[in-house]
């Protein structure tokens, strides 16, 4: 009697462990020929497998274009299957919007296909991809199984480029990172902003230059579009998400400046209250505290070394 019971238990355990680690990706059509694969607005966790960023794809008629590839090899494979099944077209081109690991560690599944990124993004990836990958293995464990950073193969340059029936306009910004690629699809008016825009999700700042970021957002708010696909959060139909991201960044810069110039320690600054108007942002407290750790030392250094 005992042996069969144990076998059943083992089988159950195996099923649970296995079924926990499949990305159940779904594509939502957001415009003609255009789909969003929306990530969670939480932080990396074993529960979400690192599926926290948005990916998108376009069926151009001349092959599918994929924008960002997710956090792991397994995600990339699931994404490629989803793209080809949904569009009925082979993937002919991939864009990485910037060098953060939740957006490009799925590249492996697109090996052999041209992968485009800004030159500054490619440089940053060459420096940091291994560290990013190690950290995601630490945070996500076996979700990352088999993942090896596969870097972009072609420079994305500002200007227009036509794929199938879609005229894509590329913009090179920086601020969230050293290179932030924005893509406007003139065929549908869809603006893919990468992580320059967060929608109801607190912005992340590990490589941020807040002044450059705010000036990038000014540039975006002068760009006509029908809908905006942010790096994190829901599709936005107007400029609210741009304005809210800019508002948060302006407040954050002022908060750090005030804390340093009024003599707060870095640890005290972590625990200062956050204005209620940002309550709609997911992961607000966690990201605010990470931002203090990213930004406080530079402002403090400038303050103490000013003379």
């Amino acid at each position: 009697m005992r042996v069969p019971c144990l076998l059943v238990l083992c089988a159950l355990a195996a099923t649970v462990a296995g079924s926990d680690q499949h990305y159940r990706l779904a594509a939502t059509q957001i415009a003609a020929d255009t789909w969003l694969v929306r990530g969670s607005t939480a932080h990396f966790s074993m529960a979400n497998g690192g599926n926290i960023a948005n990916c998108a794809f376009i069926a151009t008629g001349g092959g599918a274009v994929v924008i960002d590839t997710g956090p792991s090899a397994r995600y990339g494979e699931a994404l490629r299957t989803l793209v080809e099944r949904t569009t009925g077209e082979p993937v002919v081109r991939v864009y990485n919007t910037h060098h953060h690991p939740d957006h490009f560690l799925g590249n492996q599944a697109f090996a052999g296909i041209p992968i485009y990124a800004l030159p500054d993004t490619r440089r940053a990836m060459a420096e940091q991809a291994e560290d990013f990958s190690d950290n995601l293995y630490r945070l996500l464990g076996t979700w990352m199984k088999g993942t090896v950073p596969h870097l972009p193969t072609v420079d994305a340059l500002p200007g227009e480029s036509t794929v199938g029936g879609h005229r894509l306009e590329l913009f090179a910004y920086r601020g969230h990172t050293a290179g932030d690629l924005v893509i406007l699809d003139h065929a549908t008016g869809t603006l893919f902003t990468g992580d320059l825009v967060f929608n109801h999700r607190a912005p992340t700042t590990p490589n941020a230059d807040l002044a450059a970021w705010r000036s990038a957002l000014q540039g975006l708010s002068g760009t006509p579009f029908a809908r905006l696909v942010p790096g994190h959060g829901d599709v936005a139909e107007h400029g609210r998400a741009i304005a809210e991201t800019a508002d948060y960044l302006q407040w954050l810069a002022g908060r750090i400046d005030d804390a340093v110039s009024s003599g707060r320690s870095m640890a005290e600054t972590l625990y200062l209250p956050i204005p209620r108007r940002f309550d709609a942002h997911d992961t607000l407290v966690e990201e605010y505290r990470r931002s203090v750790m990213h930004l406080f030392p530079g402002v403090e250094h400038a303050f103490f070394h000013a003379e």
Partner: protein
Amino acid sequence: MLTVVSRALNSGFIAVAITLLATPASGTQVDPLGSPQWEFMHRTMLDGAPYEFDGRVVVMTPASAEDAMNVPVSFRVEGLGPIERVVVFADLNPIHKVLVFHPHDARVALGFRVKIEQATPIRAAALTADGVWHVGGAWVDAAGGGCTSPGYTRAAGTWYETLGQVRHHRWPGADGGDAVERLRLQVMHPMDTGLAEGIPAFYLERLEVTDVTGKPYASLELFEPVSENPYFTLDINAGGRPLRLSGRDLNGNRVEAELD
């Protein structure tokens, strides 16, 4: 509590005596941080003396470190009466002791940064006049490597250009009146742990804030885990008087600065 006593019984009479001595009148002895190293920390950092985990010793750290070489920590002790000294340590660091703070005429509060090698509790233990340690702390998660990587100025080879430089700012009115002043200061020093390959230990081991007559306001014993080019945040009862910083590092280099 039962577990503590029975484990002590197994290891003999001396351990039992220590455990009984350490039994406080109030508070708790169940480590709220669940650290596997607590008993060892109690023996080595607090000399096995009586202690209690005490919410009046508040340790502020991030739940997760973004930079393992610069983890911000502040502690504050309130409502415990005079404090002889505060010992700060990290249970799971390769070098546990971070610093000892002596608040001669200052609030029992300090801000600083530490290097950590992996996820660890960071604790502050405040010693009251009755010989009891009051222990507060928090866990910090980290990707790690903060103690075994060379510092930025060490890696860049520029540390000797700035060694011993002191910068400071003072903010009167930390208590809403004139008596307590916020003092922040930075001493340029590589604070080498000795655990990075080929780089021997080289760190500031003592700093003291006095007035010009030598009356001490606060002093610090420092150890390897304190971050490179460290900043310290203190609240001192100096009321605008001219202050002086003095100290030395492991190699006998002096630190001297007027804190006007």
